[in-house]
């Protein structure tokens, strides 16, 4: 009797093996980011965008009938956590591609793992030059970046201040962190390239509350424009200090301050600020594709009417579709996927074109891909000049 039962079970087991292969398999994609803690808003903006794109792709039939499945992990602001997450996603879950953290240090920590395992490492958030330098051969073969670079932003801001705003004496305000110092270096290089000089450079600590002394030095130096390189809270304090001082010269800033938090904190003092963004002001677009995207985003995230979709969210959204194109060609072979990705062009939802070649792993081309947007009535719009 026991023997018969054994044979029956064994037979059933064999049958399941014969039937299974025809069932559809999920294609696993990994994501790491700050999903909690002080930088959580960046990570959640990324996660929402990736989820939205995957839902759409799956609803439209997936990749040749196979569904995309996202495994998201939280590394907060902890690089060791980012590394452990990457290891788990790559070796335990076996993801075919990896979306790296929006934070540069966490991005670099996971990059060591993914590149060693030869898993395409996709950067849709961080703009720091070092994760994928804009020089042939300097970017790792398995690393791909879709956004613009910090050095490009600096170049565009310098050009805009001098050529469009006709500033004769440009002042610079940067914070005393790695981000600020990197910005200072890039801006100095950019001004030099145009044969101009920075009139005065001022730095500050992240905890400073009053920027009067720095601003007064800038006024003493007779500056007629200020380029800032820091985060939203600090630029909010700067423009409010300027208001108290009755200072009325144009303020420009890096992409970090496109976040809605800056406009909320600074209030009316943020009006007129120019920002280097990775895409044109989405609100000006009459394109039905853009309008539909914005509407859908608003429904998903319950975003206020006046706020724009964060630009990094748009990049993450584009990145999923771009990856899906590659997966259609390569299926789940990581080596073939890398080849497909580095021979691709893709036009994103806001009309931005990404082109990759084996020599060029930055999807965008240079400072000409940086757009200047301006804050007007609390929204990001295309400036008049």
């Amino acid at each position, binding site marked *: 009797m026991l023997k018969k039962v054994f044979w029956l079970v064994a037979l059933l087991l064999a049958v399941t093996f014969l039937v299974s292969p025809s069932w559809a398999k999920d294609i696993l994609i990994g994501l790491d980011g700050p999903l909690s803690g002080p930088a959580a808003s960046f990570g959640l903006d990324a996660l929402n965008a990736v989820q939205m794109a995957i839902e759409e792709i799956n609803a439209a039939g997936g990749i040749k009938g196979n569904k995309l499945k996202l495994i998201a992990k939280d590394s907060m602001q902890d690089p060791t956590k980012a590394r452990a997450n990457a290891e788990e996603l790559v070796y335990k879950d076996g993801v075919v591609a990896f979306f790296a953290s929006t934070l540069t240090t966490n991005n670099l920590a996971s990059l060591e793992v993914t590149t060693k395992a030869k898993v395409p490492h996709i950067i849709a958030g961080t703009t720091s030059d070092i994760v994928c330098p804009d020089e042939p051969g300097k970017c790792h073969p398995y690393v791909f970046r879709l956004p613009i670079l910090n050095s490009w932003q600096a170049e565009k801001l310098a050009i805009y201040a001098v050529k469009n705003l006709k500033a004769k004496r440009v002042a610079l305000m940067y914070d005393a962190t790695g981000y600020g110092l990197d910005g200072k270096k890039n801006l100095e290089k950019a001004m030099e390239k145009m044969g101009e000089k920075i009139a005065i450079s001022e730095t500050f600590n992240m905890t400073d509350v*009053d920027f009067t002394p720095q601003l007064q030095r800038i006024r003493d130096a007779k500056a007629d424009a200020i380029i800032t390189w820091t985060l939203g*809270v600090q630029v909010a304090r700067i423009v409010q200090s300027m208001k108290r001082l009755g200072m009325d010269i144009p303020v420009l800033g890096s992409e970090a301050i496109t976040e809605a938090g800056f406009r909320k904190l600074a209030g009316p003092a943020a009006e007129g600020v120019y920002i280097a963004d990775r895409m044109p002001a989405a609100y000006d677009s009459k394109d039905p594709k853009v309008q539909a995207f914005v509407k859908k985003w608003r429904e998903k995230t319950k975003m206020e009417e006046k706020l724009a979709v964060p630009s990094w969210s748009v990049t993450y959204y584009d990145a999923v579709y771009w990856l899906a194109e590659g997966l259609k060609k390569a299926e789940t072979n990581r080596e073939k996927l890398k080849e497909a990705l580095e021979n691709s062009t893709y036009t994103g939802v806001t009309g931005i074109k990404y082109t990759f070649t084996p020599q060029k792993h930055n999807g965008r081309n240079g400072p000409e891909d940086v757009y200047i947007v301006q804050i007007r009535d609390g929204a990001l719009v295309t400036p008049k000049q």
Partner: protein
Amino acid sequence: MQEAIFSGLVIGSIYALVALSFSIIFATTNIVNFALGEMVMMAAMVALTTIVTLHWPVVSGIFAAILVVLILSYLLQIIALKRLQRVDESTAFMLTLAAGIILNNAALLIWGDKPFPFPNLLGDRILFHVGKLAVSQQGLGVILAALILMIFYDWFQRNTLIGKAMMATALDREAASAVGINVKMVHTIAFSLSGLFAASAAFLITPFTFASYYMGTDIGLKGFAAAILGSLSRGRGAIIGGLIFGLAEAILSYLFGSNARDPLLYMAFILVLIFKPTGLLGVSKWQRVA
């Protein structure tokens, strides 16, 4: 330069209020209340919730914030001082430190990690110009409000029975108790006054810093440093310490840039303490007649 001096006075008078809050408690109880920065933060957050989120009238919101801080101060006093009767003062320091950490984390849970804009209760118009210096309603308002509070405290201490009882307790707790001063009540009043000044500092500084769960740490540290600089045990000393600290910060960063500011500021700070360990206006315990 004049603008650096003006903005130094504005921020300095807020530091002075926080420094005064430290010294009021230290003078009467010998406790450094390390939860004070978090009291400032709690006042700001409660005012933010009542005024901005719940649309209460500004005055009601301010009173609600002061009330919350007074209740928290009272609770802290009961815990810290009840213990203090039996254990040493360093245990009380730890208690206030722990209370501060609890408040900080509670605020993170309640209000989240993002900073919020805080209404500028004093108005943001520019009133008049003195040469190049633009005098804003907010700047002048901060200085005047802090000045009124500090003058009130000075008058209160010198001209009321309770104030004199506080001075006597500061001088010698046992002797004060022996002549019939209710030391327990003096402690309650000290903690309440300290809470009141901390809350006032919150309404004045938060339009500059924005309201966030982490705002208390920095203002608490600077207020404490200012109190040490002036004198931790004398109210007037703490006020002077706050003003000097604010002015030095602004003038040093105007002259040398803010990279050089902190090293220079704290070097000067150490020098002062080497030559006057009790602070600029400090005196030894037996001379301490405020």
